[in-house]
């Protein structure tokens, strides 16, 4: 992998991890469309991906540093008191923690077998199309509802589990983590802005945990050969992710998921056709 490819993949990771377009799907589809022959099992590539994910997680942590500081204080306060109060920050803190549980459990047991089963370009393209319809369907159902937006702290513990389970659908390559989380929160009557914030807060510990568990890959013998690519890629992914979350936070104040749905439909459709006609592997 050249440094230019490393930078391109890092930008792709930083953007697609947060935009509701499936980073895993793009990691499969884009190299196939560009005829980049990247060995996804090469230890240097795996180490590179770990650093990209760490960069993305750090960017999210920095962007939401105030929120995470409040979450940490709220958790400590609840533990000292022995009870969760009605305080808004405390409620949101525990909603984030609870929402992380389903994907934590399912990810450990299912991630590798699911990727092995569904890793082909054609299947990823089909899931991208499904991702598009998830977003279209979510937006249609939300618009049909006449209820006013619920504030985030009005979600129940069961609602947090439901959003967490929706996030787990992203184990399927081509299904977007943020897209599913946002749709689930929208169906629970939150605003787009709150749904996006909740989705990005939920994503942070998941991405961090996944990176930390894969950290040993950074110490494989051959990894030093790709040190420059990994460091540059990590920084680029972090910067790109920061700007991506800043853009999306502003975007969802007034807009919705449908443009991303059209994008996934187009990308998935084109990739499926090219894959079926053997233009791409």
């Amino acid at each position: 992998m050249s440094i230019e490819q490393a930078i391109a993949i890092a930008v792709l990771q930083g953007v697609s991890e947060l935009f509701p377009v499936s980073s895993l799907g793009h990691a499969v589809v884009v190299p196939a469309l560009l005829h980049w022959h990247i060995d996804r099992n090469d230890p240097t590539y795996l180490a590179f991906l770990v650093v990209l994910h760490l960069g993305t997680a750090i960017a999210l942590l920095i962007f939401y540093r105030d929120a995470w500081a409040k979450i940490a204080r709220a958790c400590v306060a609840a533990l000292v008191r022995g009870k969760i109060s009605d305080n808004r920050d405390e409620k949101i803190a525990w909603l984030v923690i609870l929402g992380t549980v389903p994907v934590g459990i399912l990810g450990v047991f299912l991630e590798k077998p699911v990727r092995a089963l569904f890793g082909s370009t054609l299947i990823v393209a089909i899931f991208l199309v499904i991702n598009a319809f998830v977003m279209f369907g979510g937006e249609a159902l939300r618009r049909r509802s006449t209820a006013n937006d619920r504030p985030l702290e009005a979600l129940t513990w069961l609602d947090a589990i439901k959003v967490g389970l929706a996030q787990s659908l992203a184990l399927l390559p081509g299904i977007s983590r943020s897209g599913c989380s946002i749709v689930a929160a929208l169906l629970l009557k939150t605003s787009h802005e709150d749904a996006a914030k909740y989705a990005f807060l939920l994503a942070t510990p998941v991405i961090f945990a996944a990176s930390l568990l894969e950290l040993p890959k950074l110490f494989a013998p051959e990894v030093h050969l790709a040190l420059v690519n990994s460091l540059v890629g990590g920084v680029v992914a972090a910067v790109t992710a920061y700007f991506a979350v800043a853009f999306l936070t502003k975007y969802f104040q007034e807009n919705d998921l449908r443009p991303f749905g059209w994008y996934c439909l187009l990308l998935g459709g084109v990739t499926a056709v090219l894959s079926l006609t053997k233009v791409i592997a």
Partner: protein
Amino acid sequence: MKIVALAVAAISFILAALYFTGHGPLASPHKVHVSHGVLFVAIALASLVWYRLQSAPPTNAS
């Protein structure tokens, strides 16, 4: 529910130890499953947190 929380914590710690030592249920024999072990440690800690959050003294209604 406090007893349930403690039981889940104890079972999770045991499962974590089994996975870290290569004896985890439903796993490849004699293979250390670090991620499974870490998961069960996290579940155990979460159960202890759940136990703690049930520990506040009852408030008297005025």
